[in-house]
């Protein structure tokens, strides 16, 4: 059976380019569903069992989401798909942490920069699906701040890039955090990995510095992603129950 992939992208040229990237990346049979806006993406997802992704029903295994869409921000869909069992990847032109970090918080498993070369994109996509998500220094810094002091002070002081007032409409504010929980703490190793990443070291260099294998470094990164994800989801749940939504 073909692996179902959803590509949400408003630019048709970019969409077909991404289709090529996806087809090139996997040897399996691929069934690609294309969507040009949030509306149609929601419809497609609804046909395959709703945002929760009912087990047994044929659901998407991979979803590529563009952030800037005609009828809203891809971030909204990411938030809705928090429980959806698919690999969710943000495709964007924005490479700065101010745009990417909120996406990762909302459950994105990785991101692709649309201006990269075809080969680079294929490689990056494969890595993300294999569980080797990218982590730029700026995002590593944001993560460090996030896990160190919790949300609130984050983004204001440490990133070095002041939040852009003009962009705030397209970028939902980070979620409020009630109290630090266990799954929100990083292990010392993870912390070390993040610190090196924030200083621009490559995964190989970090492995050498820490005296571990490169895939162990990768495991740490994956775990950090998961923790960010879980913590964000927990926050969302707490927030939702507080507001009487659940």
């Amino acid at each position, binding site marked *: 059976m073909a692996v179902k992939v959803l590509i949400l992208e408003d630019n048709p040229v*970019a969409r077909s380019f991404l289709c090529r990237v996806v087809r090139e990346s996997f040897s399996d049979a691929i069934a690609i569903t294309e969507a040009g806006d949030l509306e149609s993406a929601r419809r497609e997802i609804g046909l395959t069992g709703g945002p929760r992704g009912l087990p047994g029903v044929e659901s998407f295994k991979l979803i590529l989401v563009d952030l800037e869409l005609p009828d809203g921000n891809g971030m909204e869909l990411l938030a809705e798909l928090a429980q959806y069992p698919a690999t969710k990847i943000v495709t964007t032109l924005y490479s700065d942490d101010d745009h990417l970090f909120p996406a990762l918080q909302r459950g994105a498993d990785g991101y692709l920069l649309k*201006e990269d070369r075809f080969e680079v994109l294929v490689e990056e996509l494969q890595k993300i699906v294999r569980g080797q998500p990218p982590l730029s220094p700026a995002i590593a810094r944001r993560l460090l701040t996030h896990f160190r002091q919790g949300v609130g002070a984050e983004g204001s002081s440490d990133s*070095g890039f002041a939040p*852009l*007032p*003009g*962009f705030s409409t397209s970028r939902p504010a980070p979620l409020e955090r009630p109290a630090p929980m266990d799954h929100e703490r990083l292990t010392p190793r993870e912390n070390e990995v993040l610190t090196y990443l*924030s200083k621009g070291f*490559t995964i190989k260099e970090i492995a050498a510095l820490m005296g571990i294998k490169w895939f162990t470094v990768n495991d740490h990164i994956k775990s950090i992603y998961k923790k960010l994800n879980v913590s964000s989801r927990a926050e969302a749940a707490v927030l939702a129950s507080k507001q009487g939504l659940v």
Partner: protein
Amino acid sequence: MPAEHADAFSSRPFPPSTSPVPLDSGFETQTLEQLLGTPLEPSRWIGWRLRLLVLAVLLGCVGIFLLIRTLAAWPHVDAVWRANDRGQIELVSSSEPGLTTLRGRTLLGVGGGDMPMAALDALALQRSARWLVNDSERDRHRALQEQLARAMEQRDVKLYFSDGVTTEVHAQPRGLASLGALFWLLAALALVLYLVSMVVLLARPSMRSAVYAGMSLCQAGNLLFIAVESVVDLGLPRGFNDWDLQARMAFDLVTAAAIVHATTVHPRPIDGASWLAALAWGLAFALIALQSIHQLPAAWWWTQAVTAAMGVMVIVQLTWSNRREPHPFAVVLRRFGVIAVGTWILLTVAIASADQLPALRHNIAAIGSVIWYVFIASLLLLMPFLSRSQPVMREFSMLAAISTVATSLDLLFAALFSLSQFASLTLSLFLSLGLYAGARQWILNQMMGSSMLTTERMFEQLYRIAREVELHPERTAELLSQLLRELFEPLEMSWVDRHASHSRVVADGSTLLVPVPELAPRDDELEAPGSLLLRFAQRGRRMFTQDDTRLADRVVEQLKRAVAFDQAVEQGRSEERARLAQDLHDDIGARLLTLMYKAQSPEMEDYLRHTLQDLKTLTRGLAAPSHRLSHAAAEWKTDITQRLTAAHCDLAWSFSFDRDMMLSVVQWSALTRVLRELVSNAIAHAQASQVDIDFTLQDERLVLTISDNGVGRNPHAWSHGLGLGGVRKRVKQLGGEVEWNENEPIGIVCRVRIDELSDRH
């Protein structure tokens, strides 16, 4: 000079009912005490003291009222007399019908009823025995006054004129209307002085306040006596004369001793203070006692000399105290002290030298002494308010200086050139006014020690510092203190860990407290908001006044406003930039992306990708005001690593810096694009398999070396297209230079050198 006001006033407001300055509760007294080393124990305005004050006020008013009644009821002959050159009494004018025809005649004697004629001369016109130099003359004066008083009591007074003319006039009560303006003025001044001394004493009952009250009361008494004397032209009330001499000498001596006492303990206690005070008091009381039993030969000389000596002692004490530890109060007091003592000595000399000219002496004693007493009384009145208002003090200083000059000139002309009274007075007034107009600024500077910043310079400073504060909000305290230092030239400046709502003057005007505004949100709690403590304005030559606090508050407010304005402007700018950046990014970026996907050749695609990346750098530069060097370096490295890895090329990255500076947008984007271009060259044109990047920032000097092992050779023959031209342009923009050389054994090495990579560009 009195010094007591310090405790009672400056450190604490005047009685609450009259004070415009509210108690500043934002600043704890204890902290200040520790800082200043002087107790500032706030004394409460308790009920009994208030009641006592009301009682004192009532007593004073009743006393004055009784005095006025007595004077109004005192019989007198309505006539104006003057002393002529032969030492005789001459009738100037009169409204009495019997006297109008006798104008210009000389009065030889007076009698009445069964009383025989008592011979009179000009001495009888001398109202007070206080300013008679010789003991014998004083005795004669007393005898004359005694006779006059007895004659007046007869109601029908017989006046014997020259050429044997005799008139009998009826002495009548003078009534309230004819008391004269001088009397009312002096009586009012005496009453005010009395009230102030009572307030000071009751606001803080202490030894110092008592000393101040003592000298104020003495001077109030002096003024009252002069007021009474100003009413009476011929013939004082019976017994008044005896009293007058005793009391006024005692007043002067007590005042002098009290001032000596005061300056031994204030503004700073001096060595052997109690001994000096005891000496002064002992001397004063010994003289008073001897005089009261008429056992003091040359009493006038003694009084004048001892008073002058004590004045000199005060000046010496103040000088000494100021030298030990500078205090503006001591300086101001000494200045006034010099004027007061100088005038006193001048007055003494003038009267002594005019001894042989009765008419002249009469004038000097009448006018000179009044001026001196009014001066000293106003000085006493002013003391408690010295730190309140600068203009008051300035104007008073001017008045004191000018009237001193005028008086001395008047005396000088009269004594030396034997000019008539009117001529000398006019001339001296004219001269001193001219002097005043010419030397006003100089006098002001001398008296006030004013070398304040000009308005223009102050504005400039304020503007410059507002700029700086905006750039470095964490340095607000430092910059503000710099500004205040230039404004007030204090001897000491320190930081206190308390925040007050307003500036205020503490400790006798020696200290000004200015709160430091919070102009920037503070990240850490280490730097709590505080205040600046300025001590001893104008290097200790001036006191802080309420005007200074207002000025300081204004400065702080202006600083706040300027920074707020700048921040608003900056925010508006950055919002605009961000919007522009987003538009560029969304529209042009999307189009370039589409173009890139549709590119016909890999070269075109690379070119477009490059353009897109430049656009992204540009928009990011527009949106973010500054970038930390270490953060930028991490990104550069990640970016370059990624690109080199894709091109199967190794990277050797070495990055060192001595200061993690903030790169400006221009610096950041220029360096980002230079690096990107140079790495692109190594990959695309040289087809290198190894790139070494070395970035060193030391003492603002940046050296960036990028070497490859590619096929490039002979860089001087290169044609500089868009890429290398761009590199040159950007390096030049940063004030540096770039050069390409052949690398050994193969490849190209590019060296970028920027000598001054500072925060400013």
